[in-house]
């Protein structure tokens, strides 16, 4: 088959979204201080992670910020080999979902361990992470 003809488009789009975090600023500032916060609804007492400014369970906008201990157990995990374009510079990474002792679950990278040694049920800790470019995130490390 002949190579299909394409019009060489002269228009390129590059998008970086602004991500509003004013109402969850406590969470993002907490990460800078090495703390991982969840929110707890003052009305229905539902604990939310990731944190929320409004409780979808009962409709209240009154929430308390609760620092998580971070200890938990791996529920499931994977290792990503074929990566999205914006992660192309990363080596393969392990993503785990763990249930924390407070009852909520979290999804994050699991670092400091080879995938062959990761087991469902293994104990991990969710910790804040500050990158050298000041970007903040959180990750699991083995306990």
């Amino acid at each position, binding site marked *: *088959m002949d190579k*299909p003809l*394409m019009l060489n*488009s002269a228009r390129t789009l590059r998008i970086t979204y602004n*991500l509003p975090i004013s109402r969850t600023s406590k969470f993002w500032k907490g990460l800078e201080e090495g703390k991982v916060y969840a929110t707890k609804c003052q009305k229905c007492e539902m604990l939310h*992670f*990731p944190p929320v400014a409004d409780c979808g369970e009962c409709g209240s906008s009154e929430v308390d910020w609760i620092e998580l201990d971070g200890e938990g157990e791996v*529920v*499931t*995990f*994977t*290792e*990503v*080999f*074929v*990566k*999205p*374009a*914006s*992660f*192309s510079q*990363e080596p393969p*990474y392990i*993503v785990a*979902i763990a249930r924390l002792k407070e009852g*909520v*679950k*979290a*999804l*994050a*990278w699991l670092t400091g361990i080879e*995938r062959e040694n990761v087991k*469902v049920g293994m104990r991990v800790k969710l910790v804040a992470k500050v990158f050298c470019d000041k970007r903040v*995130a*959180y990750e699991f490390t083995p306990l």
Partner: protein
Amino acid sequence: MGHSRFGDRSDVNLSELAFEAIQPCLETSGLTAKEIPYMALGSMGVWSEEPLPAVVIAEYCGLTGAGLVRCEAACASGSAAAFNAYSAVRSGQMDTALVVGAEKMRQIDTPTIMEMIGRAGYYMWEFENFGMTFPAYYAVHAVQHMEKYGTTEEDLALVAIKNHRYGAMNPLAHLQHEITLEKALGSSVIAWPLKLYDCCPITDGAAAVVLASETKVKNLGVKDPVWIEAIGVASDTANLSKRETYVGLDASVKAARMAYKMAGISPKDVDVANVHDCFTIAEIMAYEDLGFCKKGEGARMVREGETEVGGRIPVNVDGGLKAKGHPIGTTGVSMLAELTKQLREEVKPKKRQAPMKNYVALAHNTGGTGHYGYVTILRR
């Protein structure tokens, strides 16, 4: 109905591809484009240049003037479009409605496609910092299913082998070749434990079906109508971390329950099904979520050939998403087109025609990682 050839369709643009499905659909229905009052389009469209695909497709296919909508329910957009058009006809406002799925995914590079689909979980909490991909979202389900029920990587491969075998018989399929167990198990790891042959390909394709009211069907003199008996709809949390388990998709269970109740049938009445096998583990979970077997027995069904033609309930005997291909917004409509052929016993070659007892077919279409659940029941 109409159905384009699936695959790398760099030979056509989105409108030309949609025309390949729409024109035969209208012709076989005895209708002209000018007689269509409403079109619902399933399309994600982020990989092709037109932000308003329903409008450009309508103009290209002579449908301008009809009411239009583009429906988004991720990989279930085609079923969302079908539900939208079905509701328009059922309400009595429209006597006919066209359902179209059209997707051109191969106009951008693969890492950018992985990026666009990976973002389609909960962007803020799963992608921004953690770079989840679609294979990864399903891999976490595979890991837990294996842990809990003893499902193996070989079981997953058996799904791929089955669907490739039927894909090889389907001239419209993207991947028309059979594969071996060795080839499947030896393929490169995409998101452990899922390998290349556990994943559906990136596909261009279009499909179309016409829906009509009972009165219109009589007036048109349609000889062999296939009826939508029910469409069940449901959803699940955006964050995977908020789900109870990862061994099934709750949106599928709920949508199926709604559809079975509405149609007044049970899973054992289904003669043939198309389920959402975007990844091999997804087909095994679908057997269980749809009630074709008990929870945890999905792998046994594929091991024992129960979902082959001649088995208890043939599943994805057109190749499924795995081999026919998965043009995101088209898939739900493609399922309806395939199952219409199955119900009319028109499938060629006969080797992939499911035997009919009750003339009942089921389409299961999932959007996102079980975010959107659609189950449609057809009857002839």
